């Protein structure tokens, strides 16, 4: 039996909404309960999840509400949410507020330590901020893993007075949703991170380049910026909405798009840090990179660097997706193995069939077979294994996956999304797709596989950006691990 006076918390994050959270909230309200719409805990397989004073139920449908109120919904009972192994095993620094606060409530944000990072940053000043960031070892969470502090130092040293902070919120990789969860669940944290960046490098204007596929995040970011404008002044911010081009997540393409141009990739150098938006020194950082900054400011660089392994410092919000039993957001220090993430935390496949492959790092990441599951989550270890951490999305496939079709899709995706500026990416991917079609049809298999290998080498070394340069990784890893699915003899 649930006490009439208890507050019911239900997420209004897009994943919860897509699973029917609004109907569940309405049913509780109809029954006379006060419902608080909060961010998501990230246990997405349990969405819509209902939090009744710390005790969770999920996945709940509107029809289940009466049963929960009567205290009879044992089959949906999760128990104390904080003690759930999926939550208890995490090290939540960036997602410390997840599930607990109302995304657009300034009072919730302040009460949970919000703005302390910005206040501290203003006290210690630009040089000390950058030093602290370098000490933290924070690396870009958008894919390339470049040290954030070094980037900020470069921008700080660039020619002023006009400089910009650009937040890359294009999050185009399949299996990634951590940026979305920050923007929908804790938007002030991202804004605080950007304001700190502005203070550190001497930029008074920030843009969030946000993909059009995230309508809820767009609404919340706009509302949040408006609500806290007085707190971040003289820094000003604006949301710019993308228009459905994956390649615009690449930073130079993104800058062209922000300038109102075709999102074609620019040749580097010049570095965006020195000649970025409208030719001015610009910090381009991923949402998660910027969102990690307030914690680092308040707790110190060394405290952040105490998490992680090797040169991969701090925590990573890992996203468990695809055919996985416990899908959602799992923030943990670098170093956990892929097998632990997929099997222990993720619980294996949702279908209950054996795991066949996982793809880490989105559409440009390699397919990895379970025999490599001892790989630790670490930038260098992944690079050595020809794999990619990228934005830390993990897609799990069960044994029904068709690896030849997935390899073909990788080429198709590259062909559809290529900005068209460089030939290896644009034509290589189209040729690759046609050649894989022939292989799948059983034509001259050995010869055509050789052709794919050559094409892959050309794309890897001849492409202007990682779209063309990394598409060969999913393709070749599929061919090398599962040759029999391409009509080749088993090794």
């Amino acid at each position, binding site marked *: 039996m649930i006490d009439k006076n208890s507050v019911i918390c239900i997420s209004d994050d897009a994943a919860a909404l897509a699973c029917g959270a609004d109907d569940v909230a309405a049913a509780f309200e109809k029954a006379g309960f006060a419902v608080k719409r909060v961010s998501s805990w990230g246990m997405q397989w349990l969405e819509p999840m209902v939090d009744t004073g710390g005790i969770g139920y999920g996945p709940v449908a509107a029809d289940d509400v009466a049963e929960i109120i009567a205290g009879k919904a044992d089959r949906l009972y999760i128990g104390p949410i904080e003690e759930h192994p999926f939550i208890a095993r995490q090290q939540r620094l960036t997602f410390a507020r997840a599930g607990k606060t109302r995304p657009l409530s300034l009072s919730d944000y302040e009460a949970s330590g919000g703005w302390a990072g910005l206040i501290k940053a203003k006290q210690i000043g630009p040089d000390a901020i950058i030093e602290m960031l370098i000490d933290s070892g924070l690396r870009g969470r958008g894919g390339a893993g470049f040290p954030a502090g070094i980037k900020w130092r470069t921008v700080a040293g660039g020619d002023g007075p006009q400089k910009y902070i650009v937040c890359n919120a294009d999050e185009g990789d399949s299996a990634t949703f951590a940026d*979305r969860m920050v923007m929908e669940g804790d938007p002030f944290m991202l804004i605080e991170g950007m304001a700190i960046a502005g203070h550190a490098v001497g930029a008074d204007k920030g843009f969030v380049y946000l993909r059009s596929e995230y309508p809820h995040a767009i609404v919340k970011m706009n509302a949040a910026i408006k609500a806290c404008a007085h707190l971040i002044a003289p820094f000003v911010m604006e949301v710019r909405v993308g*228009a459905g081009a994956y390649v615009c997540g690449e930073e130079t393409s993104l800058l062209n798009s922000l300038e109102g141009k075709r999102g074609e990739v620019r040749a580097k150098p010049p570095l965006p840090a020195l000649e970025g938006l409208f030719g001015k020194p610009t910090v381009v950082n991923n949402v998660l990179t910027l969102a990690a900054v307030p914690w680092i400011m308040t707790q110190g660089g060394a405290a952040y660097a105490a998490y992680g392994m090797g040169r991969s410092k701090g925590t990573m919000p890992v996203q468990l997706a695809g055919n996985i039993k416990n899908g959602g957001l799992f923030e943990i220090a670098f170093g956990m193995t892929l097998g632990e993430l997929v099997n222990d935390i993720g619980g294996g496949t949702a279908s209950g069939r054996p795991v066949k492959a996982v793809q880490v790092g989105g559409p440009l990441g390699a397919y990895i077979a379970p025999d490599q599951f001892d790989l630790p989550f670490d930038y260098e270890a992944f690079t050595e294994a020809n794999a990619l951490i990228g934005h830390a*999305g993990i897609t799990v496939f069960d044994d029904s996956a068709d690896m030849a079709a997935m390899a073909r899709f990788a080429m198709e995706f590259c062909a559809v999304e290529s900005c068209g500026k460089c030939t290896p990416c644009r034509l290589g991917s189209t040729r690759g797709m046609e050649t894989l079609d022939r292989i799948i049809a059983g034509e001259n298999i050995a010869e055509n596989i050789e052709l794919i290998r050559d094409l892959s080498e050309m794309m890897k070394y001849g492409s202007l950006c990682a779209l063309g340069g990394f598409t060969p990784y999913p393709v070749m890893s599929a061919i090398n691990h599962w040759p029999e699915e391409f009509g080749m003899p088993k090794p």
Partner: protein
Amino acid sequence: MPILHDVQAEFGHISEDAIREIAGLLNLTRAEVYGVVSFYHDFRKEAEDRPALKLCRAEACKARGVEQLVGVMETAAGDRVKIEPVYCLGLCSVGPAAMVGGKVYARLTKEKAAKLVAEL
């Protein structure tokens, strides 16, 4: 870009006339504006009055069986509803996922997907 988004939101597409007007307004050539419009998947040059559904066809939704839904959805859609591919809606652990206007749908099954299309 914000102008193009506004025009598309208002009229459902970006016509030749609109391109000419925007070019004049921004002191650009028509070819330059046309180049921008044609680059992005979201912008349409032709009017489209059918209701549209965006179905995620990216890897994580494939792993959760979206390809098995395409057939029934296309049958339910016929010529009446437009089904467009989209590559990820950020709902990758609860796919197959779709979006109609600003509304998102998850855990689609054949039945749910066909019903969703039929009700558009």
